[in-house]
């Protein structure tokens, strides 16, 4: 593992770091919207991985997978934000710690 020349592994490390960032965000922030955005960061890291692998193998299947992830991310964002809005209307807050309806 050298700094130069750049290999696919460098991209994998970058993706891992991005994923860890996203994970940190999910664990540290309490604003649900920022939480969602952290999840988007993680999905992006996965995409980056897939594209790097696609490059590594010289095949575009990885990119096709990434496209599907984009579609799923869109669905996730839409439903997630819908739930968030419904939640916000009821409790007037976006704090994840107050999402405790199931706790009783």
């Amino acid at each position, binding site marked *: 593992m050298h700094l130069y020349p750049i*290999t696919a592994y460098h*991209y994998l*490390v970058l993706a891992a770091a991005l994923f860890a960032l996203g994970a940190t965000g999910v664990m540290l922030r309490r604003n649900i919207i920022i939480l969602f*955005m952290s999840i988007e960061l993680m999905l992006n890291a996965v995409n980056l991985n897939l*594209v790097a692998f696609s490059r590594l193998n010289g095949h575009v299947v990885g990119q096709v997978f990434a496209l599907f992830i984009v579609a799923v991310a869109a669905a996730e964002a*839409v439903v997630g934000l819908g739930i968030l809005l419904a939640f916000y209307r009821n409790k007037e807050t976006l704090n994840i710690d107050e999402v405790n309806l199931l706790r009783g």
Partner: protein
Amino acid sequence: MLEAIAFYGLAALILGFGVMVITARSAVHSVVFLVLNFLAVAVVYVVLGAEFLAVIQVLVYAGGIVVLYLFVVMLVNQKRTPEAHHDPHRKTGLGIMLASAVLAEVTAIVVYTASAPSASPIPVSSPVVGGNTEQVGWLLYTDYLIAFEVASMLLLAAMVGAILFARRMD
């Protein structure tokens, strides 16, 4: 050499914007950094020879999904900031530890695999044959046709679901 500069520059941008996303105080600022982050990732895709995916990334992610986030951030007119309330049961330190453990683990795997003698790293500059868009399109509509249709159904369901959730109950 040029590629190294591009890579490290972009990596710095991506991680920098990523850090800003999760640390920004205002959610709107977070959204802006998220856009910038996605744009930088799109450039990485171009470097990796995935032009089509890069354009889709900008079009769908940056131009679509994040706009949705921005709308929601602006429309939920927050009366009190979410960070004000602190749950005493929350274990922040554990969170950081977990995240760094994930990072360390993944990095270790990658580095180990890369330095293992069996894995001969293929330089990224090896050319991809043919046009990228045609290949992706071909695969999407042949081998992954069912997955493609399932994805479109998923989007439809998500759309209906979101409208149901967000609609006023009256």
